[in-house]
C-alpha cells in the first residue's frame, strides 16, 4: 500500500484564534498597578491595661484636620506644605544637639547596660505573669535594642523619647485626600530618616528590605528602633 501523503493543516484561521484570545485579554485585564501606603491598626486588647501615665506635651505632635480641610498643628493653623518641616523637626531637632528645642521630644543614649537592666526587670515581671502580652512585646523590643547596641561602634545609640507620638485627629468631613497627604508626609519623613540610618550604619538599601525575607527582618527591627513610627489616630467624635 502506498503511503498516504498527510495533507497540510490549514493555518489560515490561526490569526483569528489569536485575535480572539487577544481581545479576551484586552477586555478582562487592566494595566493598573496597585500601590499604596501600608499601615497597621492598633490591636484591640481584651482587657486594656490601665494607662494613666502623664504624657509630657513636648512628646506629642498633634495634627488636626477639620471638616473644611484646614490643618491645625500644635495649635497653629498651617498649610499642608509646611507639615513636612514640622514633622522632620519633631524627629530630628533634638537628636544632634541636646535639647535645643524644649517643645520637641528629647533623645537619650541607650547602651548595653541599660538594655540588660530593663530585660532583667521584665524577666521578674514575666515570672509573675507569664502570659502578659505587654511585657512580652516590651521584652522583645529591649532584646532588639540590645542587638542594635552591640552592632554599633561605641555600643550606644540615641533613642527618641519612648512616649513620643504623632497624634492624628480628623473630623467626619475631613477628606480622604487630605488624610492621605498627611499620611504620605509622615511616611516620607520616616523613610528618608531610615535611608540615612541605613547609609550611616552600612545596612543594605532600605527600599530593598523585605519583611518576608528572614535576613532582612533584623535590619527592619533595628530601623524601627532607630526611627520609630508611632502614629495614634483618635476616634472621630460623634
Amino acid at each position, binding site marked *: 500500500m502506498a503511503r498516504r501523503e498527510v495533507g497540510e493543516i490549514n*493555518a489560515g484561521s*490561526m*490569526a483569528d*484564534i*489569536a*485575535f480572539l*484570545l*487577544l481581545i479576551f*485579554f*484586552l477586555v*478582562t*485585564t*487592566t*494595566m*493598573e*498597578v*496597585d*500601590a*499604596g*501606603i*501600608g*499601615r*497597621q*491598626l*492598633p*490591636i*484591640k486588647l481584651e482587657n486594656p491595661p490601665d494607662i494613666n501615665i502623664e504624657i509630657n506635651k513636648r512628646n506629642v505632635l498633634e495634627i488636626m*484636620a477639620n*471638616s473644611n480641610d484646614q490643618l491645625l498643628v500644635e495649635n497653629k493653623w498651617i498649610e499642608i506644605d509646611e507639615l513636612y518641616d514640622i514633622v522632620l523637626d519633631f524627629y530630628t531637632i533634638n537628636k544632634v544637639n541636646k535639647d535645643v528645642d524644649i517643645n520637641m521630644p528629647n533623645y537619650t543614649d541607650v547602651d548595653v547596660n541599660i538594655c540588660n537592666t530593663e530585660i532583667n526587670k521584665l524577666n521578674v515581671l514575666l515570672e509573675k505573669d507569664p502570659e502578659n502580652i505587654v511585657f512580652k512585646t516590651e521584652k522583645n523590643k529591649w532584646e532588639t535594642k540590645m542587638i542594635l547596641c552591640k552592632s554599633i561602634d561605641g555600643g550606644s545609640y540615641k533613642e527618641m523619647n519612648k512616649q513620643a507620638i504623632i497624634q492624628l485627629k*480628623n*473630623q*467626619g*468631613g*475631613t*477628606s*480622604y*485626600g487630605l*488624610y*492621605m*497627604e498627611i*499620611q*504620605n508626609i509622615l*511616611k*516620607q519623613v520616616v*523613610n528618608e530618616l531610615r535611608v540615612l540610618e541605613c547609609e550611616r550604619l552600612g545596612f543594605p538599601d532600605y*527600599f530593598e528590605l523585605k519583611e518576608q525575607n528572614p535576613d532582612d527582618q533584623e535590619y527592619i527591627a533595628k530601623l524601627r528602633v532607630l526611627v520609630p513610627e508611632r502614629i495614634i*489616630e483618635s*476616634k*472621630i467624635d460623634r
Partner: protein
Amino acid sequence: MSKFRKGGKKGIPGVNTSALPDIIFMLLFFFMVATTMKEVDMQVEVVKPEASQAVPIENKDDVDFIYIGFPIDAAVGTEPRIQLDDRLAPNTRAVGEWKLLKVREGKTVVKIVTSLKVHEDVGMRLVSDVKEELRDINAIKINYSADKIK
C-alpha cells in the same frame, strides 16, 4: 500551458499573511504579561489620591480590596458607599462579616492585608468606621491605596 498569458487580468498578488498569527500572538503575550486581571466590576467611582511614598503591592493573592466611593448608578443615591467584591455593602457592619468569610485556608485574618481604595473626596467618617470594623475582627494590616507619583 502557455508561456504568455493572453488577455487574462493581471491581478496584484495577495499580501502574504502567514506571519499575521505570529504578530498577533506577540501582542497577546505582551498583554498577558503586562496586565493583571480586573478584580471586580466597579459599582462606585474611585479617584485615588496620589502619594509619593506609595509602594506596589507585592502578592495580590493575600490582599482583599474594599472600594469606597460615589455610586455610579444614580438610582442608588449620591452618598459615598462601600463596595465589597461586586456588591454595594448595606452598612459598615457587613465589612467585618465579608472579611471573615474571605479568610483563606491555612491563614489567619491578621495576615491578610486589606487594601482600601477610597475616593479622595470621601469623608473620613466612613473610612474611620470601616477601619474600626476591621480592627474589631483583628484584621489590622491595611493598605491605603494611592497612585504613585514621583
